[in-house]
């Protein structure tokens, strides 16, 4: 996967300037999901659910070593193979090796953000393997050659007309095809792919340590087919995806559905207990579980930022985020966007590559009530900002500016002098044509207009 998280500012600017319809699609889609989430939360005692889920995830994360080994044990006992991948590249290598060993020519995939993080498609395609994304939204963006722009709604930035034009060109549907016609056209292609596929690749929503159960939630049925039809199923699992007990699924499956789409539960829930056994009528001959670290254990050891690992990847914080809603996920330049992407980026990509994203927020806090596992996102964003400034990864101009600002504001005489100067600035300066920081303000909001006299002068002369 190509990562361009550094370029957040210029990508966001380009999206807003060149593709205004994208903003409309993202805003409409995210607001719809956000209101659905509110409705989904309102009909249960959501505060108890969220607090409980937070505690369970905290427990599993603080004993992750033990639970991972337990999960490995149970998976093997169930007949699945377990692979450990230290880096995303290792994970891609493991999947490629499996494909080679099984003579795989066609792969079908269920939507998985971890597979984006790992870059599975590119490495398989480089081997000459046909890879089909089978989630409809993900299939659309695969045809477009784009990255997903949302954790659960990958094509949220595209409207119906975009899909009509795309499918007309690629699948020969009429220019004005109804959504049902478009879906049917995709289904025809994907049905062929399911029948031909030798390997199915998915992520998982949860891995239960107690029973080695892989749990997947979806609405289209494509994951059910991906995990049952091909002879090999490969599940990519981030090591933070564990739950301790099978019983925990009962609430977590409902919680993630309500958070993501407001549904009481997803239309399809698949609980996978290993490869096909003698009594099963379908299912793969082999199940391979790839446990991916990719910087997660280092994040777990980080006393300030580890709570990001509770994330269920439901996308609720993206929908709640007014910054995300202006651009969609492409501005963020890697798999995870929005508030959660901004607190994972510096941890998983490193502070230099991911350091721009913690600043892609106004710290408005709208994500806090949306998160099903109560991740204190604004506090984590702030913690990363502290560290980025300390590591001098912010601009030199900003560092000097902040020093000067603090100097003025800790000296009332300097402050009053600055106040006088502000009112004597020549028009072009106040209009932002001279100083670069001011220009970033004035170009978008017009010239600064201070009060004729500052309040401290009004006070000195007496308020009547």
């Amino acid at each position: 996967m190509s990562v361009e998280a550094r370029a957040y500012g210029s990508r966001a600017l380009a999206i807003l300037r060149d593709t205004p319809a994208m903003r409309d699609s993202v805003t409409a889609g995210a607001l719809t999901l956000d209101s659905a989430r509110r409705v989904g939360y309102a009909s249960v005692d959501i505060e108890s659910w969220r607090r409980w889920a937070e505690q369970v995830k905290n427990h599993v994360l603080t004993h992750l070593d033990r639970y991972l080994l337990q999960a490995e044990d149970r998976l093997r006992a169930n007949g699945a193979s377990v692979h450990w991948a230290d880096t995303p590249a290792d994970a891609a290598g493991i999947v490629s090796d499996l494909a080679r060993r099984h003579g795989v020519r066609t792969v079908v995939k269920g939507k998985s953000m971890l597979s984006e993080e790992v870059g599975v498609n590119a490495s398989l395609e480089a081997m000459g393997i046909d890879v089909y994304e089978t989630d409809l939204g993900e299939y659309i963006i695969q045809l477009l050659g784009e990255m997903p722009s949302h954790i659960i709604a990958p094509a949220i930035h595209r409207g119906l007309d975009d899909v009509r034009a795309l499918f007309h060109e690629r699948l020969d549907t009429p220019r004005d095809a109804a959504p049902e016609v478009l879906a049917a056209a995709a289904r025809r292609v994907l049905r062929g792919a399911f029948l031909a596929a030798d390997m199915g690749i998915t992520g998982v929503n949860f891995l239960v340590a107690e029973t080695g159960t892989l749990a997947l939630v979806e609405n289209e049925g494509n994951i059910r087919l991906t995990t049952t039809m091909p002879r090999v199923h490969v599940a990519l699992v981030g090591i933070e995806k564990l739950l301790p007990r099978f019983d925990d699924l009962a609430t977590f499956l409902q919680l993630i559905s309500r958070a993501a789409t407001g549904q009481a539960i997803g239309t399809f829930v698949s609980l996978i207990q290993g490869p096909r056994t003698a009594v099963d009528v379908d299912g793969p001959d082999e199940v391979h579980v790839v446990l991916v670290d990719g910087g997660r254990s280092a994040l777990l050891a980080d006393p300030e930022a580890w709570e990001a690992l509770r994330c269920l990847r439901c996308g609720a914080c993206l929908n709640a985020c007014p910054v995300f809603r202006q651009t969609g996920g492409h501005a963020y330049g890697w798999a995870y966007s929005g508030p959660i992407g901004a607190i994972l980026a510096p941890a998983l990509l490193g502070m230099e590559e991911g350091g721009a994203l913690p600043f892609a927020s106004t710290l408005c806090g709208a994500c806090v009530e949306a998160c099903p596992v109560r991740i204190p996102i604004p506090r984590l964003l702030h913690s990363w900002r502290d560290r980025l400034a300390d590591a001098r990864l912010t601009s030199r101009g900003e560092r000097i500016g902040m020093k000067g600002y603090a100097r003025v504001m800790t000296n009332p005489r300097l402050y009053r002098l600055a106040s006088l100067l502000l009112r004597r600035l020549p028009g072009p300066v106040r209009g932002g044509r001279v100083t670069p920081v001011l220009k970033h303000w004035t170009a978008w909001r017009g010239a600064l207009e201070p009060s004729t006299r500052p309040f401290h002068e009004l006070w000195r002369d007496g308020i009547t």
Partner: protein
Amino acid sequence: MLRVSLFATCLGDQFFAESVADCVRLLRSLDVDVSFPAGQTCCGQPAWNAGYREEALAMARHTVRVFEGSAPVVLPSGSCAAMLRVFYPQLAEREQDGFTQLAQRTFELSEFLVKVLGVTTLGDGLRGMRVAYHHGCHALRELGVEKEPTALLAAAGAEVVPWIADRECCGFGGTFAVKHPSVSAAMADRKLDTLPSPDCLTSADGGCLLQLAGRSRLRGMSVTVRPLASLLWQARQASLSRPGA
């Protein structure tokens, strides 16, 4: 007579001077003795939010010194009040006492009126006015100031108009406004595009108002933007000047 220290805040001092004066007039009309500690400057929030802890700490120490004492500190700004009340205690490591002591006696204007003074109505000077209220994020989510401003506006006869985006961030966000001005402006535009043509748009936060006023002016929209303190003074003033009131 209750004494309070007024923190005008740097934005209030420089950009909303008349509105801060209205805040003084309003408090005096409610028999509050207002003092204005002379050394006050800026609470330091832009540095804190941008990750410059050392600079923010210097400004916080300065502010704690300026507002020493026991009088409540009243700010016509939700965001700066949140800085003093919520973020100063997080910022301080060794000086907990002064920081938390200040935090505990810090109030945004409308919450001071309602929660400390027990005001339910200021007067009826806003009768017939259609007002859109923008909930600044820090006032709403950090201070929990939600009903106080709109209750006072409504009690003064204003119609607080339903606005689908009234709780959405305006895009100001301190340095965010100049770091990512295109996104910031798009956020303000979303607010303005959903605004149901009120007589005026108000908020307890100067930064948000600068952002929304600047953006609406640049786009040629005719939106009257007025700080909450001025509207609340107007609510009160009409009743005071009426004979027999």
